[in-house]
């Protein structure tokens, strides 16, 4: 292997992302100065690409997955283990198999947390703006549970707005409310009912507020308010967007926030 004198194992580590910042810097410099090393890196990267493509196509066959799921569903330890190679259909009957798989996936869902299941059951029953409020409250809560409630961190609306533009091709109004003691924390991309939706995140005292902009054409939300699981949601419409603010702020405070938001928005429109 011709690496032009560069340590072979360090080259591997660079390819595998196992170098620290210092090592990465050294490697990048060596690569720029050393065509043999650069060529070797290209070859290794090509090999990696080919292997990873191959791996993408290697997935446990559905029949195997079903057998293992069935194994997990057997009633107790003394029950006969699933035969190692059951014929595909006639041992358990056609009806049994999908049911077991369904049961197994429900089991997984239950293991992942009761929250998700209760959300699913409520989604099925609520309709209209009600349902949107619920979806958005769930998004807000999930964002709070995630490692970071935002995808782009910036208190500068001139950073957040272009980020939405580039990411979602949607450009909602991002207003500056710092005069009101509310800071812009950043933004995140949501998917609401299958539609990409920009969400701005503000902080008032210790409370986070998510303001999600939905395309008004699809989500024809009249001004409305709602409360889901202790979170308040307020909707209003402005131009092409239906805005929803969701927070654990008390309702009166959230209403003040929304009023400030609208005022700032109008001022922004006027000054443009």
């Amino acid at each position, binding site marked *: *292997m*011709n690496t032009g004198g560069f340590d*072979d*194992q360090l*080259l*591997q*580590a660079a390819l*595998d992302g*196992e170098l620290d910042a210092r090592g990465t810097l050294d490697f990048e410099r060596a690569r720029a100065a050393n065509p043999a090393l650069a*060529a070797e890196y*290209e*070859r*290794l*990267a*090509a*090999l*990696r*690409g*080919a*292997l*990873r493509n*191959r*791996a993408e*196509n*290697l*997935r*446990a*066959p559905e029949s*195997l*997955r079903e*057998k*293992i*799921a069935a*194994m*997990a*569903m*057997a*009633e*107790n*330890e003394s029950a006969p*283990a699933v035969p*190692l190679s059951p014929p595909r259909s006639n041992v358990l009957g056609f009806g049994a198999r999908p049911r077991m798989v369904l*049961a*197994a996936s429900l*089991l*997984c869902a239950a*293991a992942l947390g009761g929250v998700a299941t209760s959300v699913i059951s409520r989604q099925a029953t609520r309709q209209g703006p009600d349902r949107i409020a619920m979806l958005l409250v769930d998004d807000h809560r999930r964002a709070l549970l995630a490692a970071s409630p935002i995808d782009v961190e910036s208190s500068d609306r001139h950073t957040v707005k272009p980020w939405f533009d580039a990411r979602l091709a949607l450009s909602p109004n991002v207003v500056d409310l710092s005069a009101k003691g509310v800071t812009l924390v950043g933004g995140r991309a949501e998917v609401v009912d299958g539609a990409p939706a920009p969400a701005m995140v503000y902080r008032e005292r210790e409370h986070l507020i998510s303001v999600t902009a939905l395309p008004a054409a699809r989500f024809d939300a009249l001004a409305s308010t709602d409360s889901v699981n202790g979170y308040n949601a307020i909707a209003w419409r402005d131009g092409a967007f239906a805005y929803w603010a969701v927070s654990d702020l008390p309702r009166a405070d959230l209403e003040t926030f929304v009023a400030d938001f609208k005022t700032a928005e109008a001022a922004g429109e006027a000054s443009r």
Partner: protein
Amino acid sequence: MARLIDPSRQLFASVVLPHLDSAYRLARGLAGGAADAEDIVQDACLRALKGIDGYAGGSARAWFLTITRNAAFTHLARKRPSSVLLASNSEEAELAMEAAADDAPDAEAGLIAQADAATLDAALDGLPPPFREIIVLREYNDLSYREIADITKTPIGTVMSRLARARALLLRALAPEPLGRTAP
């Protein structure tokens, strides 16, 4: 029909089911054939179910892959005893491969990137087992050096040197030496 699911099976499901693809890839990489890989994963699942109480938290994937690896070795030892090389033999195997191959030829990266599945599988199959394993763990399963060292119970230095050798051997197998080129 209400069924009672005992807790260890519930744990088994949450630990093993999400990592079936990973286990299958490892088994495919180690054993080659699809049928062998399915047998290995089934056996690994039975072992995992039996030993689920030994799962002490931590990376479920690493735990299950370790079991899958053991199941694969058992399977291979039964099926083709002569082909299983223990880790301690790897230096020997490396020397043997080293002797068989000339100095690395130049090759177009494009040629390597376009290698089809059958070519890749054959090249991988041609590697001595310890090298094949390291490639499968790293590239098929995207494990870190630390995770690979834990699963194979080898020092990180050995993981790194094997990975370097394994990749060099694969490149040689995939990129045939250009005509008229003499080794330096």
